[in-house]
């Protein structure tokens, strides 16, 4: 009882081969799209690598790049095969390769699906990486004289301006770190010394934020120092002032940005996966119908095409038996005590190829 048996006339087979040729070429293009999406994601992650702690998130774009390249190669081969399938003489060339090719494709589509799902699962690790990375970056904001960290100030400033965010979770994060370098603090002033002594770690903490936190939509000039002190500014109440600084935290802003990118990429990869699956189904039908034509002997006749020759359970059982007998192959050899000159009749079936081929009788040892 075959799975999804369909009758194919000669013209139908030819049409199927032509359509599949075109579809395979389209799949090469989608493979290239996958590759470029992976490349784009890699570039975006690298652009912000200073703000992310060392986490293993590069595996997602690397997987997409690899899958894209393999998809191009597989579909290129598939296109070549389908092009030759119109002519049944040329099909003989590819006959033996087709079934392994289809099996490979089938497992490859799993990789594509895994790639799509990974895009959605990356979010948790990304959030953790951003949290740690941003805390570190803000901690080193003042170290513009330390080699290796001297550009962190500019990076954080540009990030806050571009993504319209302030601090890690909010602007209050800046109150807890010293973001003014000690090089620019006048240690002879009493006020400065008092502030340094007022906390355990000797940090110069202020209730002020860098200029990059300023909101351009604010109707009044930016208030970035003495933010929590209402009396320091005329007609100012910091609890109600929403437009003065950016209210969003940079971790949330970056996470939203990357999640948006990855959701779009994930959706595209899912669509590509469905497309690959349909092309694979077409190629399987083409393969089985052409093999049946060869078996019948008349290239012009109708033939049946199917997905699986027997039902799903039987196919699984047969394949399991094949795998078991592969194991038994080794056991029979030890029965002859390792002597290669003793000819033992082979009882294993062919490991691949069309079913119903009669077992060959091995010649008796002379």
């Amino acid at each position, binding site marked *: 009882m075959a799975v999804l048996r369909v009758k194919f006339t000669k013209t139908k087979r030819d049409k199927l081969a032509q359509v599949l040729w075109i579809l395979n070429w389209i799949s090469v293009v989608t493979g290239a799209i996958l590759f470029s999406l992976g490349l784009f994601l890699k570039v975006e992650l690298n652009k912000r690598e200073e703000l992310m702690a060392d986490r293993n998130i590069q595996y997602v774009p690397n997987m997409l790049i690899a899958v894209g390249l393999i998809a191009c190669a597989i579909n290129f081969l598939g296109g070549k095969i389908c092009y030759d399938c119109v002519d049944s003489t040329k099909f003989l060339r590819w006959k033996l390769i087709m079934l392994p090719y289809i099996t490979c494709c089938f497992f490859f589509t799993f990789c594509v699906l895994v790639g799509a799902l990974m895009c959605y699962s990356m979010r948790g690790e990304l959030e953790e990486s951003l949290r740690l990375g941003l805390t570190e970056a803000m901690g080193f904001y003042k170290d513009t004289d330390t080699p290796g960290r001297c550009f962190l100030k500019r990076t954080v400033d540009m990030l806050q301006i571009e993504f319209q965010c302030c601090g890690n979770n909010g602007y209050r994060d800046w109150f807890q770190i010293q973001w*003014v370098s000690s090089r*620019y603090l006048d240690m002879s002033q009493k006020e400065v010394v008092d502030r340094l002594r007022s906390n355990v770690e000797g940090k110069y903490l202020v209730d002020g934020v860098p*200029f990059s936190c300023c909101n*351009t939509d604010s*109707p*009044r*000039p930016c208030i970035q120092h003495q933010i929590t002190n209402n009396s320091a500014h*005329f007609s100012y109440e910091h609890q109600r002032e929403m437009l003065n600084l950016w209210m969003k935290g940079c971790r949330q802003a970056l996470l939203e940005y990357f999640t948006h990118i990855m959701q779009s990429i994930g959706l595209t990869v899912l669509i590509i996966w469905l497309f690959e699956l349909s092309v694979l189904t077409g190629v399987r039908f083409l393969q089985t119908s052409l093999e049946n034509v060869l078996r019948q002997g008349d290239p012009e006749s109708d033939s049946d095409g199917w997905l699986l020759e027997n039902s799903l359970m039987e196919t699984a059982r047969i394949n399991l038996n094949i795998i078991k007998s592969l194991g038994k192959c080794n056991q029979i050899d030890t029965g002859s005590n390792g002597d290669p000159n003793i000819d033992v009749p082979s009882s294993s079936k062919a490991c691949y190829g069309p079913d119903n081929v009669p077992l060959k009788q091995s010649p008796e040892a002379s």
Partner: protein
Amino acid sequence: MPFMPVKFTLQKRVKLAQALWMLYWLSVIVGIFIFSLGIFFKIELRKRSEVMDNNESHLVPNLLILVGLLACGVNTFGGKVCHDSLDPMKFTKWKPMLKPYLLLCCGFNALLLLAALLCFLMQFAVYLTLAEGLKNSIKFYKDTDTPGRCFMKRTLDTTQIEFRCCGNNNFRDWFEVQWISNRYLDMSNDAVKDRVLSNVEGKYLMDSVPFSCCNPGSPRPCIQHHLTNNSAHYDYDHRIEELNIWSRGCHEALFSYFSGMMTSIGVLIVATIALETADMAGLKYLTTALDTMEDPENPECESEGWLLEKSVKETFSLQLAKLKMLGKSNQVEEGGNSQGTT
């Protein structure tokens, strides 16, 4: 004596027709490109129209859009003619339209030349509009409660951040205007009152700049207030401090952006003129080669193609004579009429 004659065999004619067809399609793509550049330029002008006082001239982008569309149309027609030129049946259809088409191409080239000239000359207009517009923007920075100007602050802040500039010519332009609205000034404070009374116009002037002038590349946190007062900040000398705020003026920054865009578009249009001239020359050669075939039934025969039937001088004097005839024919008619009526 034809001008620049070239002998053509069948092979040469076929090759010329094919090459010309591809050249025409390249010209169509260039036309589409010019059209999209015109749209891009228009959008950029619209985006910055607030700092240009909403006074900017859209002549150049509109002309570019028109030229792009015309280029597409003219070159598609040329491509079709080339495609049909090797089939004598189809070509006879197009023959009568060729002379007016070539004249149209000449006119189109003149239009392209005008567009290129405008691209280079209108930069002066942009320069002047920017100067005026930025001055007004800085003046209206504080008027965030006046309808029609309430977004000037935001536009100017984002412009200064994006183009990395401060003020009109430099940051000192901010010292001459009051950029803090009176709504946020505590008029009961003596210091504020002194400052307001210290100048004739009663403006609250400071030696400070808005936060958008700050340079993120500065190693120290941004100093935006008391810029000229060295003692107000620790270890600060305003004469040698270069990284604190942007030192370039927005006038220069915006102008170099627009002039760069307009110069590149002008260069592209000059290249398009050369391409169109090549198209016209090729088409003239092809059509004359097809016309001068000794034996129209035999496609293998040789023929001659040229740019002008007579030499340049003779053609010129012929055209002048034609124009004079046109003038004289009116006079003869008048004389005839007057004779007729008498």
